[in-house]
């Protein structure tokens, strides 16, 4: 007969740790609010509320004059181009870094694994916008800095995901090739990568969806695209123009989500 599992002496004992964690979190929240000089009065005051209301009203009546749209189209094209090229570059460099970062079989010593993982982690932990601000010094204002910023951050993200996909690829075909004395390069090209490819493509498309959102705001620090236009018009309190830039952003995000979904369907068929 099975022994009945022992019950905790009282309910507090079993949950003491959880309670301690919750208490610590609550304390963190309280201390956070207390240490920030939050200006609730300024935000909740009649004046600020009135201004917010007016902003929103103006945002909802976007400027759709042909003269402004002529400025909007190039910025949209720039944003799309930044996201596509940034993502593709990241896919290429991410794969190049993922190969040393992955340990594919038991005899693989993976000498470069720690170094490659460290590089990927650093690339990943710095957000796109920070990369863009850093790159402005080297590449100057404009979409090129934004493209490179997207590429750097996304290389870190995709590299890690790719390395995992490569490590998780079924080992059989690679083992069969290695048994016949075929070199690592060709094992990678004909056994490992073809099996991991669908996953790599799917990750890349997912990051593209992410990057169109990032590309749209990168311009705020001067890295080109819609963000630059938005920061300019918002700075001048031209809310109608800002509204149409926001509309264009939402349109692009929606369009890229659709395109990515369509490509996925096409590839999995």
């Amino acid at each position, binding site marked *: 007969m099975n022994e009945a599992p022992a019950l905790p002496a009282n309910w507090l004992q079993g949950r003491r740790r*959880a309670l301690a964690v919750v208490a610590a979190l609550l304390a963190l929240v309280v201390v956070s609010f207390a240490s920030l000089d939050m200006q609730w009065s300024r935000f909740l005051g009649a004046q600020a509320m009135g201004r917010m209301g007016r902003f929103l009203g103006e945002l909802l009546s976007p400027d759709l004059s042909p003269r402004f749209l002529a400025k909007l189209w190039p910025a949209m094209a720039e944003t799309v181009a930044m996201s596509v090229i940034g993502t593709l570059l990241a896919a290429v460099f991410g794969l190049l870094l993922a190969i040393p970062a992955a340990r594919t079989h038991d005899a693989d010593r993976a000498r470069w694994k720690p170094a490659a993982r460290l590089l990927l982690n650093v690339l990943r932990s710095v957000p796109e916008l*920070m990369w863009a601000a850093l790159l402005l010094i080297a590449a100057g204002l404009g979409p090129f800095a934004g493209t490179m910023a997207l590429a750097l951050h996304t290389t870190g993200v995709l590299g890690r995901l790719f390395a995992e996909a490569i490590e998780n690829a079924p080992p059989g075909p690679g083992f069969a090739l290695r048994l016949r004395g075929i070199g690592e390069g060709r094992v990678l090209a004909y056994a490992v990568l073809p099996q991991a490819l669908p996953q790599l493509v799917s990750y890349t498309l997912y990051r593209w969806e992410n990057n169109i959102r990032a590309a749209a705001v990168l311009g*705020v620090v001067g890295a080109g695209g819609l963000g630059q236009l938005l920061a300019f018009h918002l700075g001048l309190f031209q809310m109608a123009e800002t509204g149409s830039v926001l509309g264009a952003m939402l349109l692009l995000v929606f369009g890229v989500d659709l395109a990515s979904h369509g490509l996925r369907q096409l590839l999995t068929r």
Partner: protein
Amino acid sequence: MANTPGADLRDPAWRSRLAWAIATLVVLWPLLVVAEFQPWQLFAPDSLQSTLRFLAGFFPPRLDAEFLSLVARETWRTVAIATAGMTLGLVIGWPLALLSARSLSISSLVGRMAPLPATVRLAVRALLVALRSIPELIWALVFVRVVGLGPTAGVLAIGLTYGGMLGKVYGEILDSGDTGVTRALLRNGSGRLQAFFFGQLPQNASELTSYTVYRWECAIRSSAVLGFVGAGGLGQQMDNAMKMFNGAEVCTLLLVFVLLVVLTDRVSGLLRRMLG
């Protein structure tokens, strides 16, 4: 068999591969032009010189006590903005999630949901979409204009965007699990809140906390970024240091930021294991 040397060893699909490569290049070319993709610009003598001068300043990083105490204060501010923003996000997200959850609908216990609750749920979902589809950076830009520079704009921006995200995901988690217990409670006359606290919350607790902790980690990263538009914290210091071309300060701030990200990653993993 392909034992004869020569032609047979060639990749049988090389024609289609080449065609695809050329087609890709043709499509990419205009994009490269639009994005002003000119990597050689990086190596133009004058831009290379300023880059190298900036990078040379990185070493040694600025580590004197005065600067380090400033960095410590700003790091705490970044964490505090993220935590306060996340709290606001929870305050906004939870009620909306409860309002939008289909599994808490009483009228749908028998047949279809009644038209009024269905409309309310649709409206709440639309509000959630609107909140989260505008990036937090843009909310921050708007709030900086309304309440002025400082952490308030950052907290509000994170609160609104994350409120939208949390509301949506919480609602989905509540609806996607096994709703049998909740439905049974509702059928037997319990209120919606009772059904939530005694049916859905215990069932989905680990998934909900794990997602919340993950979002807190994201909030710390975005709180640092919001500093670039004037919401305070590490980002603002980094922005200032970059504008002054002060490589030593930028280096310290970058190191501290990467450490902060690694640390939150660890803490969040630990919390998820403990609470899960």
